[in-house]
């Protein structure tokens, strides 16, 4: 049942992504509204799937690659919906929805099963650490999507090409605001995640080795946020610099994650 619901959510996310891209290709904005409705439906199904997982296995879907990626995908989907409604940037789903589809797809391929890890992973500290970190990464993902679209729209406006991107993408100011919000919301959450993670590690595992890939990755992520924040200070093209920093930062974080995961001997519990 949980697996089927998860697959149903994947299909709905996929349909929303396809519809969003068709909407972009045809320049038919009304289709993007339908894509947002499909996204909302996917989130409802996904919520039920995650709730059933929690009820059945008596643990939150935060440990193990399948469950944790599913939760991360759920939060990115939620972020997409919030960006569409509160942020007035419905078409940001053009970038975010494929990200959600990939995350849910990998999660479905891995399977939604409990990791059977130690009780330490079920403590409140651990739950807070993961949830805070996920919200932080959702902020970075939204900033990445907004930044990428900002750069494309900026190029379109500068080069006076009034094509599909000009018509379909949100205004520069909206994208800049969304990207800034992603970083400003994500940064404190990631910082909290680091602090809570440090406390949790000290409590259950003693002092962590400085070369621990998880620590390296989190530190790198934190630096990326700092860089994205610094890029938005000072004069000149702040919005442009912020967009470049968000896009580059996201790519660095993802690439480093993949590299570290491949190299890590503790791959199963890395995320």
């Amino acid at each position, binding site marked *: 049942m949980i697996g089927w619901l998860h697959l149903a959510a994947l299909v709905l996310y996929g349909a929303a992504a396809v519809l969003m891209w068709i909407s972009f290709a045809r320049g038919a904005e009304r289709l993007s509204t339908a894509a947002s409705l499909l996204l909302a439906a996917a989130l409802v199904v996904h919520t039920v799937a995650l709730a059933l997982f929690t009820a059945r296995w008596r643990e939150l879907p935060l440990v193990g690659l399948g469950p944790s990626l599913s939760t991360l995908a759920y939060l990115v989907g939620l972020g997409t919906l919030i960006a569409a409604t509160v942020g007035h940037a419905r078409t940001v789903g053009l970038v975010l929805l494929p990200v959600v589809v990939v995350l849910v797809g990998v999660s479905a391929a891995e399977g939604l099963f409990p990791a059977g890890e130690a009780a330490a992973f079920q403590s409140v500290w651990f739950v807070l650490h993961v949830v805070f970190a996920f919200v932080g990464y959702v902020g970075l993902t939204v900033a990445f999507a907004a930044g990428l679209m900002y750069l494309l729209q900026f190029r379109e406006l500068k080069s006076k090409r009034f094509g599909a991107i000009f018509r379909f993408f949100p205004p520069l100011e*909206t994208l800049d*605001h969304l990207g800034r919000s992603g970083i400003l919301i994500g940064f404190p959450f990631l910082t909290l995640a680091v602090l809570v993670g440090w406390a949790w590690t000290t409590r259950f595992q003693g002092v962590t080795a400085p070369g621990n890939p998880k620590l390296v990755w989190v530190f790198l992520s934190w630096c990326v946020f700092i860089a994205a924040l610094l890029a938005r200070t000072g004069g*000149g093209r702040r919005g442009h610099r912020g967009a470049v920093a968000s896009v580059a930062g996201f790519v660095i974080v993802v690439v480093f994650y993949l590299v570290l995961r491949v190299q890590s001997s503790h791959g199963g519990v890395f995320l």
Partner: protein
Amino acid sequence: MSIVVVGLNHRTAPVDLREQLAFGRSEVPAALAELVAPGLAAEAVLLSTCNRTEFYLALEDTAAGEAAGRALLAGRAGLAPAEMGRHLYVHRDRAAVEHLFRVTAGVDSMILGEPQIQGQVKEAYQLALATRSSAGPVVGTVLNRLFQSALRAGGRVRSETELGLGAASVSSAAVELAKKIFGSLQGRNALVVGAGEMSEITVDCLKREGVRRCLVANRTEARAKELAERVGGQPIEWDGIGAALARVDIVVCSTAAPRPVLRGEQVRAALPGGARRPLCIVDIAIPRDVEPEVGREPNVFLYNIDDLQSIVDTNLGRRRDELPRAEALIAEGLDEFWSWYASLAVVPTIRALRDHGEALRQEELEKALRRLAHLAPEDRAAVEALTRALLNKLLHAPTVRLREAAGNGRGTAVLDLVRYLYELDHGAPAEDAPPREPL
């Protein structure tokens, strides 16, 4: 009852004639009251915009009503009826209804899909609703339903197609560009260089979008002051343009200067280190007012008249692509209205049929009850209820079929047959003949 539209528009009349025939809001009630009178129109609505003046009439005597409409327009224009006739069009019944639906949807507008017309039709309808002539209200059942249906269909065209999307004029293209940079223009500041007509039109568009402060610069200071007064802006000195660049978000240039008035070095000097926030410069002058190298400055977005025109052309092309879908929605609304309108014609026949049946029922019931005098009151009531139920059941199918026939174009034949079969015309002329065209 027929529906007629008498009027002229941008395709049939030159602008000076359209100006003469444009009715101010305060003039409309008198014009409507003049037409809605015994022997002329039963109902009337006047739609008067800068591109069209049209009387929509519901009338019994088509010729008299039309003539009155023509005479009223000719009199206002000071033209002989024959000369006026060259500029007028008259559509009757279904063609008149279709015309209103197309007008309301923006399909008949000078700029395809322009959004104002729907509000103007609504305003004309509401004004007519509030108007009374010596014969009573000037809007009755027919025009009431007609305008509501047209507005509904127009609303569907607007919401279900992209006929009205995108800028369709140079000034609105400038606004569209600025909005693609800033999102909302609420609270933004603008600088207008030049005090010509195009500047004024563009500033009006920007003001409507919520631009807070408008600085106006012109070589002739008096003209800058005049324009600033008209648009609620603030005049500045010609030499103050450079300093103003750092304080504004949007610059509109439209001077008649033979050489650029905004040069690269001037912008660089005004914005040392580049603009801290985006600066949108719209140059609608020919020859251009802004040196092209200004557009290469970081955070500066420079557009000239060709750029704006290409946006307009693209948008109009997209609107034309949406026409078939808009036409389909119009046809749907038109059919729906026409079914209702055609069914009006069968109402007198249905009423006559029921009156005929009721008279027969009463007659036979009276006879029967005389013979059944011994019945208790409750039994008499049961007999009466029985006859009423029988009559209703017998007339139900013919009533439904008559309404259907009215809607599907077979009304005349079916009406004739029913009136013949039940002798509804026997001894007295028909209460009112059905409209010719609808059936």
